[in-house]
């Protein structure tokens, strides 16, 4: 089980990514799609965090003077994830706003009903 | 000498042409078990017509018929009639080919101004028929010019003088046969008289002609016959050293060409074209291919 042990975070992260992708691929309801996007984002963020993780590491904060830097995890992915989360939120917010408008315009959230623009 | 021929050859053509006209009427009559008019009948007709009053439809009506006749005379000037041609260095056979079509064209223009539907129909038929016989005719002429390597009629005659006449030499014999087959069509005699069908479209292009007009048109017709036959004599039968022999040769050709086809009934214009594009064309084509591949 050492493989699972070594890679469980990756598997989890990409499991989320896969779920998100599948939802986007299969579902027709715009809200569900947005949920899928959100799950996808979460998975990606989790993957980023896992990349920077160090086994038994601590947060890279010198909250007390004299704390040794050895056991600290990589701060870069955390910074990236912070940014990525905000971007994810931004997309999510816009997507929800569009969903609202979509529903008002088409009276449904089924994307198959919205095929006026094609070909 | 050349100046003399300038005067002589048109006169000869005029005489012989009218003679052929008379001959053809007589010929026809004999075939149909009639006696027929005397040989000089066309001359009498023409003289009479000159004195008759007629109608005109405008300047082009007059000019066209004049142009037609004049151009026929000019063609004659290109023909060596048992001597040298007066216009021997002015474009040769190619010019003749072109000038030959001015005759019908003049009549056509003249008739066009008359605005008579029968005329238009006649002209249309004439032009179509011309396309019909021009295909084999051009092949024949081209075979000759290619074979002898010149476009001058005089030189073709001279070259035949040196060896055998064209109709007797191997590849050109096909051209000769083809020529004989299309000769009636070129001359506008039976069975290719649909252009000027008297009963059907009131003589077609000549429908509006009377008096001097008809006279000129008749002369033009005679000249056409003369040109068609003299071309054969010159190009395929080695010409002649003097006008008398030339005339005799023409007579033979005339008789032969007339005889071959006179027994057929009149053809509709499509039938005529179809005929012309079948056998004569095929034979002429064979001749042309042989000339092009075998050569001299």
């Amino acid at each position: 089980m050492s493989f699972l042990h070594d890679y469980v975070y990756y598997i989890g992260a990409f499991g989320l990514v896969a779920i998100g992708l599948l939802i986007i691929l299969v579902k027709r309801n715009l809200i569900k799609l947005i949920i899928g996007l959100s799950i996808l984002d979460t998975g990606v963020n989790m993957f980023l965090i896992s990349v920077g993780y160090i086994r038994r590491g601590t947060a890279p904060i010198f909250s007390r003077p004299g704390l040794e830097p050895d056991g600290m995890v990589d701060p870069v992915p955390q910074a990236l994830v912070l940014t990525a989360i905000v971007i994810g939120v931004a997309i999510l917010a816009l997507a929800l706003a569009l969903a609202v408008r979509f529903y008002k315009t088409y009276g449904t959230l089924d994307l198959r009903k919205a095929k006026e623009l094609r070909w | 000498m050349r100046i003399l021929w300038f005067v002589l050859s048109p006169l000869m053509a005029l005489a012989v042409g009218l003679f052929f006209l008379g001959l053809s009427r007589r010929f026809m009559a004999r075939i149909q078990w009639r006696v027929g008019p005397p040989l000089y009948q066309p001359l009498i007709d023409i003289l009479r017509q000159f004195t008759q009053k007629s109608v005109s439809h405008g300047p082009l009506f007059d000019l066209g018929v004049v142009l037609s006749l004049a151009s026929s005379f000019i063609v004659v000037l290109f023909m060596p009639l048992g001597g040298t041609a007066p216009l021997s260095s002015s474009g040769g056979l190619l010019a003749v080919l072109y000038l030959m079509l001015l005759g019908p064209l003049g009549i056509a223009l003249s008739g066009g101004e008359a605005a008579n539907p029968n005329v238009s129909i006649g002209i249309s038929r004439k032009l179509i028929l011309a396309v019909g016989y021009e295909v084999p005719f051009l092949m024949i002429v081209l075979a000759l010019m290619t074979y002898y390597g010149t476009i001058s009629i005089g030189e073709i005659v001279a070259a035949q003088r040196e060896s055998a006449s064209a109709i007797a030499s191997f590849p050109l014999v096909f051209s000769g046969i083809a020529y004989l087959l299309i000769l009636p069509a070129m001359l506008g005699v039976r069975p290719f008289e649909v252009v000027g069908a008297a009963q059907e479209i009131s003589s077609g292009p000549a429908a509006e002609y009377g008096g001097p007009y008809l006279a000129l048109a008749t002369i033009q017709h005679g000249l056409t016959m003369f040109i068609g036959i003299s071309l054969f004599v010159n190009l395929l039968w080695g010409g002649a050293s003097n006008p008398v022999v030339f005339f005799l040769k023409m007579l033979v050709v005339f008789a032969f060409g007339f005889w071959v086809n006179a027994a057929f009934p009149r053809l509709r214009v499509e039938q005529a074209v179809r005929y012309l594009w079948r056998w004569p064309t095929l034979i002429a084509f064979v001749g042309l291919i042989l000339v092009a591949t075998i050569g001299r």
Partner: protein
Amino acid sequence: MSLGLLLIVAFGGSLLTYLLGKVSARTRDAFAVLISLALVVMVASLYGKAFRVPFYGGFLGMPLVLRIDGLSWLFAIAASVLGCLSVVFSLGYMKGKERTSFYYSMLLLVIAAMLGVVLSGDLLSLFIFWEIMSWSTFLLISYNGGPALAAGMKYFVMSFVGSLAMLAGVLTLHGSFGTLEFTGVAAGMSSASPGYVLAILVLFGVAFGTKNAIWPFHAWLPPAHSEAPSPFSAVLSGILIKMGVYGFLLLMFVIVGLRTFLSLGVGRIEFHTVLSIIGAITILLPTFIAIFQNDAKRLLAWSTVAQAGYIILGISFGTSLSVAGGMFHFLNHAVFKALLFMVVGAVEYRTNGVRDLDSLGGLIKRMPVTFIVAVIGVCGLIGVPLTNGFVSKWLIYKTLILERSPFLAFAALFGTWGTILYSYKFLHNIFLGQLPQRYEDMERAPFTMLLPMTILSVVVVLFGVLPGIPLAVIDTIGVSFGFESLHVTPWGIASDTGALNTVNMLVAALVGLVVVWCVFRSGARSVSVGQADSYAAGAAVPRDKYQYSVRFYAPLRRMMAPYLKDFVDSFYMRLAGWVRGLGDGLRRIYTGYVGDYVMYILVFLAVLIFVQIAWSPW
């Protein structure tokens, strides 16, 4: 006289004409005429000069050069003179039409671009002017709207295909030799491999052939010529398509070189023979299609294709006589075809746009001068002796016969007989026969139309009687290509194998005419009567019912129609249909459902990864 100034005047004149049109129509008209006249004068003053001037330092590293020599002068003078006449003709023709400023400025632009093409000293500037010429032509062809749109489209697409082929050729040459100036390229070509030269010839041949409308690239021409405004049809047919001829001449004899050109081929098939055969096909097929046209301009358009065949046949046959004949025929065709299009233009102008041969007739009574020039033009077209067309065709026939190519000669000669058929139909159905009632009160063509037509018809006869004038110019060009000199006399050609002497013919014709006329006048006088009097014997004939011109060659048509379909054109149309169908099918992949789009993205990603894992190309 500098070439740059010439082009500046030409292009600037076009622009200024448009701007002036916003101020005053009369000023604009005068200015347009003035500019076109100035061009004629400027080009004429360049006669006999030969020099080159660089005019643009480096367009993407390729310097642009202008040059003039005999060949380009010949084409330049033809273009400027025809252009000028066409502008003058337009003064009357375009009166009262809309967007005239646009029309004039485009017409001048086309002329300017043509001058640019022939004065270019390198292939890139040739291409640039070529393209300017193409698009301005497109705009003019489309000018009339309606069916002209399809015509313009066809023109543009075909011409664009051609010019792109040319672009490829130009750039290939640049890649090989690093220069595009004619002399440099010619020097490089002399040592190039035959396959390379052949490829270049084919690439350029598509461009020039399309412009010159040789079979199978002719499909654009009939609709374009017939739908364009008539004065422009005159330019189009007279000179613009001849830019293809110019290109061919330039390519074959200046760039590739005579010797190389004649020896080029695949196996035993010689390139120039193939081109000659294409020329022959281009003569035959369109001629017989023209016979059955009922639209006057379309008839002339098909005739243009056929005559272009003569030119190509002449120049690709590659003897001194044939090339001279081809060049001369280009000049002649420019003159008489422009004349004939102007005739149709004049008729159209007076009949409010009618050019249907079945509904015209008898106009000789109303437009006698137009008729006379039309007859002269038609004679030139047929090649009646003593008109210019005779001489050029005579040269071509003669060389074909003497060089033992009777089949090509047959095509050429037989084409002439077809020409007679359609030319007569053209004359008859417009001018002869019965005058329809509605044209009873028609006026003559205005002076601005008669003037250019008269000038052109004089040229037709002049070049027919004294062919030595243009032939002398053409002969020097031929000599510069490396041909032996023709023995040009003022009245024709001196030669052992059949000389040409037009003065003899002129004398004979005059004498003959005078004599016959005298004989004719010596007969009884005739009375002038109308049609009704003789044909219907005075009865009241319903007008417009006794006119035999509809379906003029019906019997022949019944025979030939099945063989005369324009297969090439229908192939192109079908091709266009296929392309549209393909596009229509392809765009169905954009289904409108976003799930599918997501699928595409993932499929693309998966394929990329799969390929890498499976074959690891990277």
